[in-house]
């Protein structure tokens, strides 16, 4: 089992959510986050003075899937969240030791 954490553009969230649903990936936890990447944010200008805005709003998705579905989920996210411009975000994948469904006590892939 893998945990997939994707940081994406907030305005791409609905598209990504629909794409995940289409491949049968229903469970997802979403948080609104702020952060910056290699480019250190963007510049805004007020009354002739420039300010660096280095904490930009992003949407963070957290999904746990069986190992065999991992690539499918990654593809669904990259296909929909990609614009090709700076600021598209990142996906982090890590192994998950165990999953427990609280309602039934089921464990492992069945509980995903």
């Amino acid at each position: 089992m893998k945990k997939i954490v994707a940081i994406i553009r907030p305005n791409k969230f609905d598209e990504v959510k629909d794409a995940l649903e289409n491949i049968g990936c229903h469970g997802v936890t979403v948080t609104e986050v702020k952060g910056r990447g290699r480019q250190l944010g963007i510049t805004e200008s007020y009354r002739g003075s420039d300010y660096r805005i280095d904490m930009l709003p992003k949407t963070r998705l957290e999904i746990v899937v069986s190992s065999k579905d991992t690539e499918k989920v990654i593809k669904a996210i990259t296909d929909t969240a990609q614009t090709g411009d700076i600021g598209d975000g990142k996906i982090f994948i890590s192994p998950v030791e165990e999953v427990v469904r609280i309602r039934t006590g089921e464990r492992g892939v069945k509980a995903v």
Partner: protein
Amino acid sequence: MDPLLNSGDTAWMLISTALVMLMTVPGVALFYGGLTKKVNVLNTMFMSLIAFAITSIIWVLYGYQFAFGADTLGGIIGNPANLLFNGIGVEQLSTLATTVPETVFIAFQMTFAAITIALISGAVVERMKVSSWMVFILAWVSLVYVPIAHWVWGGGFLAQLGALDFAGGTVVHINSGVAALALILLLGKRKEVKLLPHNLGYSVIGASLLWFGWFGFNAGSALTAGGLAGSAFIVTNTAAAAAMVSWIIIDYIKTGKPTVLGAISGAVAGLVAITPAAGFVTVQAAVIIGLVTSVVSYLAISYLKPKLGYDDALDVLGIHGMSGLWGALATGLFAAPFVNELGTGLFYGNPGQLITQIIAVVVVAAYSFIATLLIGKVIDIVIGLRVEEKEELEGLDINQHEETGYRI
């Protein structure tokens, strides 16, 4: 013939009074509130709210009487014959606006006093103690606004000299801009010197309400509902529009994009500049006054301010002081006798008017600066002007009011 009440004039003055009130709350409150940090939004709005309330009380008890009472002491102050509003009859007509009741003229002038002090708050936000601000309102309106209003509008020595200030370029805008400078020199810089609006949408609403209310401010200053009010109305709108376009052009040149803050800053600068001129100049002159004023204010904000290093948080000196200065001088240039027989400027053969305008500007600016410095210094010594560093960093809303603007 005894003057008679004119119900058209009276109706227009009542409406204008309400329009000018709208400029302070919520106009200035929203305009400034949107530009500050979100931890200071309530404090910033409160400064305008309380300014309106305290000034209202001062004005009816003694402010109006000293400002607009019959001239005394050689043009320095009015004779306060009706202190505490005693002896002002319901049917009594105003001596300066002869076709409307005196109560209406008092209310109209009250809204001008209130917005002048509220404008100053923009310079000192995010670091001034709320208690000190309230004491400052009391002292400043009494000792600075009231005498200056008398000198220019109440028949005082600058009025006798022939200084032209239709709706308050000198009394309101130069006065508040210079007072703002004096106060920020005493207060010092904020820990974080930034103009990074937390909610520019508020400011757009606020500036739009200012523009709307300004029709009462300028066209109401005709004190009658006739041709002069109509002329003041159209030049006011024209100058605001020209100044917005002009600021946007500067934005394009400097950054390649039009900014929303630039658009509303330009509109306000244009409204300020046309204020002293509104009842004296043509529509053509209003276009020029508007186009030029954004350049004046933009240069003041982006070159003068960083060079001199004072922390005028929301550019009260840069916009109100500098555009007010340009407007006062432009009145001396463009005043056309066929618009208003009371004013003839340099371009219509009266260079002396420009000199008179300069004298009025220098006198008002010097008095406002020195008197504000003294008032501010006394308050600083007695109760302190500035909040503690910890409070400034956490925000004034939670520390000065025990409230927060946003629970989301």
